[in-house]
């Protein structure tokens, strides 16, 4: 393993697979397969890759290279992981070179999803760094004939406090890091930390804000050609093309075809864009999978379903219900809507295919591409390069498959293939439509004594694990079969994510109806089922509080015993000024809380919302949230994610619905799929981060989506007396700005 890693670093690509694939949940259950756990005593992904040099290497010049199998999606993980490594190792942040997901170099950490990057990779890097720091101190101790506990480290050196010092570079030259991490090495003492817990500025922003090449879209390799893929207008269609006419178009140097897959290639982008529009003249036909779901949300109730009871508690059979409520909540299909369309660069050279991709899972993508091209896994390398924010499974993997098919036909020539806006809107997998039905009973004291939650949903992950999961894999002849959808099991859950209440209800039943037949292409969208389930649960809690005549915040607290849940609710309510709030006509407050996945971050949010009846306009005057993500590595990074999650969820919840006509898309650009703009953004957003030093990382990226949706509906109900249970809220006539 050491030899092969050195070979890789020397530029020669050597297979880096330490273990056969085995079933394991990575990325919140969205990825399939993944390496097995070989050292269960070690924390995070160290349990799968226990050797220190899988994570950290020290060069002779003292620079430190840190490896993570996770990717930067715009959430700031590069900064957070570099902070963890630099602090635990005791080197300056600027001495760290961070390598993110690259199948030739980094540990296989599956898919970057489920708000698990710090929990899995951050934990591994922090503990590996603590181990390396100890090994360096022990090496110095041996050299000086003292005990390691008498030594200390500072800024890349080991010191004895009496004038002797030696650099890490010096020590590392004769120190092997090809050793297992030890489970008993302590992390740095809190009072000695310089970077963890501080709002260190993002390491990637200076390049992004000044126009330096930062994205896969910006890659320009010598001799590179551009390509565009030819498809019908959207998922469920098949394009018809006059290839002879296409070949005559100026700027189209070549057409690459494999089965019904086709791409045009040229040296300049603009002629290819024009050719792409000209190609639409050929028209299209309905593809094999076009089938209509029928009007939503009722169509979901008619689909074939596999039902599972995921909670069934009867702790208090003697409870006496006196009042029963039930309500139905639903959401439409939603788009990821990346601002940049998907793009990939591929190069087939010396029998090795390299694909630069903004996929969230370079390892499963590599397997899918290898199968698509009938190449051995060892000869395919997928390297992550940033793209526009994706918020889940969009066109990133598909476009990588497209670029790979073109590159394999053009050995030695780098191929950059970018989707059009219309292709991104038309072909990205949608976030699934969902329906939840809730039923609960109150006893005479106004306590919830019985609870039932049923949820209907398609799968929340069709992430690629095989060639048939890529669009190109379904277009080659013979086509590859798509991997059959499976529900993501609890405790992460897919459609039933966050369907099990965290509240202490004495009797509770939760049923998850998994709908295996997909009328439209769907996959993971930030938060998966948590958006609708929390919208439903936290809306219903308000309806029950109203029925019981209780304040919504006090009512929630009365049903909770988790001290951290109670703390975020208390903090958000206090910061918002919940008790002193004075409603005015058409203006009200709304509250919601959830612990993401029931084992991730705690978040409570309060909104102050006005409805302007004459204009049908919504104004969010204030959003105040409190979040507990465990130990806060970078508090401003957490604030940034939660602010963004609140704003994005307001957009989803208030406006968004992907249009469908007979199972086919009707939205091909932003004109018919409007998202929130500056005029609609809240007047003010304040995020309070509750740091829990020493506690496990809980992740942050997805925790605001569900609570914000419910807080908006609750605030509108308070402001107008009318409750929205069917999303988007704008469908009922309310809109922003």
């Amino acid at each position: 393993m050491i030899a092969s890693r050195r070979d890789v670093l020397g530029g020669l690509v050597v297979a880096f697979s330490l273990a056969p694939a085995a079933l394991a949940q990575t990325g919140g259950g969205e990825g399939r397969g993944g390496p097995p756990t070989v050292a269960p005593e070690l924390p995070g992904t160290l349990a799968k890759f226990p050797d220190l040099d899988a994570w950290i290497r020290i060069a002779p010049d003292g620079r430190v290279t840190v490896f993570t199998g996770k990717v930067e999606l715009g959430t700031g993980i590069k900064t957070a992981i570099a902070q963890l490594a630099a602090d635990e190792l005791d080197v300056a942040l600027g001495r760290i070179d961070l390598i993110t997901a690259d199948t030739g170099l980094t540990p296989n950490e599956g898919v970057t999803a489920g708000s698990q990057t710090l929990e899995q990779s951050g934990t591994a890097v922090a503990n590996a760094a603590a181990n390396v720091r100890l090994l360096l101190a022990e090496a110095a101790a041996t050299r000086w004939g003292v005990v390691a506990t008498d030594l200390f480290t500072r800024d890349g050196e080991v010191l004895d406090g009496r004038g002797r010092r030696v650099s890490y570079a010096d020590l590392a030259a004769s120190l092997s890091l090809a050793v297992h991490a030890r489970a008993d090495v302590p992390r740095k003492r809190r009072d000695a930390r310089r970077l963890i817990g501080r709002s260190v500025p993002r390491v990637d922003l200076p390049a992004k804000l000044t126009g330096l090449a930062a994205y896969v879209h910006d890659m320009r390799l010598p001799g590179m050609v551009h390509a565009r893929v030819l498809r019908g207008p959207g998922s469920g269609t098949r394009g018809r093309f006059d290839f002879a006419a296409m070949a005559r178009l100026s700027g189209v140097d070549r057409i690459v075809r494999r089965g019904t897959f086709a791409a045009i290639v040229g040296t300049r982008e603009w002629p290819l864009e024009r050719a792409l529009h000209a190609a639409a003249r050929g028209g299209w036909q309905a593809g094999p999978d076009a089938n209509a779901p029928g009007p939503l949300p009722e169509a979901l109730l008619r689909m074939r379903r596999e039902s599972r009871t995921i909670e069934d508690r009867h702790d208090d059979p003697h409870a006496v219900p006196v009042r029963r409520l039930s309500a139905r909540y639903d959401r439409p299909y939603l788009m990821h809507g990346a601002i940049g369309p998907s793009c990939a660069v591929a190069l087939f050279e010396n029998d090795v295919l390299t694909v630069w991709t903004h996929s969230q899972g370079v390892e499963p993508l590599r397997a899918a591409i290898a199968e698509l091209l009938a190449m051995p896994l060892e000869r395919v390398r997928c390297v992550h390069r940033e793209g526009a924010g994706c918020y889940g499974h969009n066109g990133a993997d598909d476009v990588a498959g497209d670029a790979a098919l073109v590159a394999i036909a053009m050995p030695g020539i780098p191929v950059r293939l970018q989707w059009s806006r219309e292709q991104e809107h038309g072909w990205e997998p949608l976030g699934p439509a969902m329906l939840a039905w809730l039923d609960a009973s109150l006893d005479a004291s106004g306590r919830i004594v019985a609870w039932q939650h049923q949820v209907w949903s398609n799968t929340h992950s069709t992430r690629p694990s095989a060639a048939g999961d890529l669009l190109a894999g379904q277009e080659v002849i013979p086509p590859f079969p798509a991997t059959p959808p499976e529900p993501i099991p609890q405790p992460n859950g897919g459609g039933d994510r966050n369907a099990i209440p965290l509240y202490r209800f004495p009797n509770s039943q939760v049923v998850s109806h998994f709908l295996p037949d997909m009328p439209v292409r769907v996959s993971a969208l930030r938060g998966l089922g948590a958006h609708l389930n929390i919208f439903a649960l936290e809306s219903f809690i308000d309806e029950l509080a109203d029925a019981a005549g209780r304040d919504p915040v006090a009512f929630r607290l009365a049903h909770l015993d988790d001290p951290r849940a109670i703390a975020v609710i208390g903090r958000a309510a206090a910061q918002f000024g919940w008790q002193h709030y004075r409603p005015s006509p058409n203006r009200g407050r709304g509250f919601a809380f959830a612990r993401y996945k029931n084992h991730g971050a705690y978040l409570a949010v309060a909104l102050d919302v006005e409805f302007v009846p004459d204009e049908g306009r919504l104004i969010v005057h204030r959003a105040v949230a409190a979040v507990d993500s465990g130990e806060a590595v970078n508090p401003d990074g957490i604030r940034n994610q939660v602010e963004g999650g609140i704003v994005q969820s307001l957009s989803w919840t208030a406006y968004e619905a992907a249009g469908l006509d007979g199972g086919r898309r009707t939205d091909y650009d932003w004109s018919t799929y409007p998202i929130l703009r500056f005029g609609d953004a809240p007047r003010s957003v304040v995020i309070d981060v509750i740091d829990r030093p020493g506690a496990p990382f809980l992740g942050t990226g997805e925790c605001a989506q569900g609570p914000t949706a419910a807080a908006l509906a609750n605030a509108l109900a308070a402001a107008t007396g009318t409750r929205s249970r069917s999303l988007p809220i704008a469908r009922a006539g309310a809109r922003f700005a």
Partner: protein
Amino acid sequence: MIKLKINGAVARADVDPATPLLYVLRDDLGLHAAKFGCGLGQCGSCTVLVDDRPVFACLLPVGAIGTRAVTTVEGLGTAEAPGTVQRAFLDEQAGQCGYCIPGMIARAEGLLRRTTTPTEEEVRSAMAPSLCRCGTHMRILRAVRRAAAARGGGVVDPAEPVA
């Protein structure tokens, strides 16, 4: 051969004059700040300044620019020496994926060249043509307010206190 005044220098490109400016910037001149987002003038990722006014570079034919001065985000400063708007975006950490941000910076620069004392509503409506999907809006607004102050002005009636 098209001659363009870009970021204070003269640049030449041998392209069809109908080519939108964005492709010339990215593919011929190696200026990657402006991004392709839609090609339809709907999202603002490609925004640059032409004679101090924000334009969608994905739509503007390069042959129509003539002698007008084009300013891209590369022309406003560097990572080592950022311009005032870039500095304000860094100070507010106004970026998540960052893909839309060069367009945002160009648009903010255009506004502040017109007035350094816009109202909150003027800021929001000036920025409205640019889309952000990460929800970085609050930080972008804070950055514009900060940049206005750094240029000796300030946003009138800001919706949040200015740092």
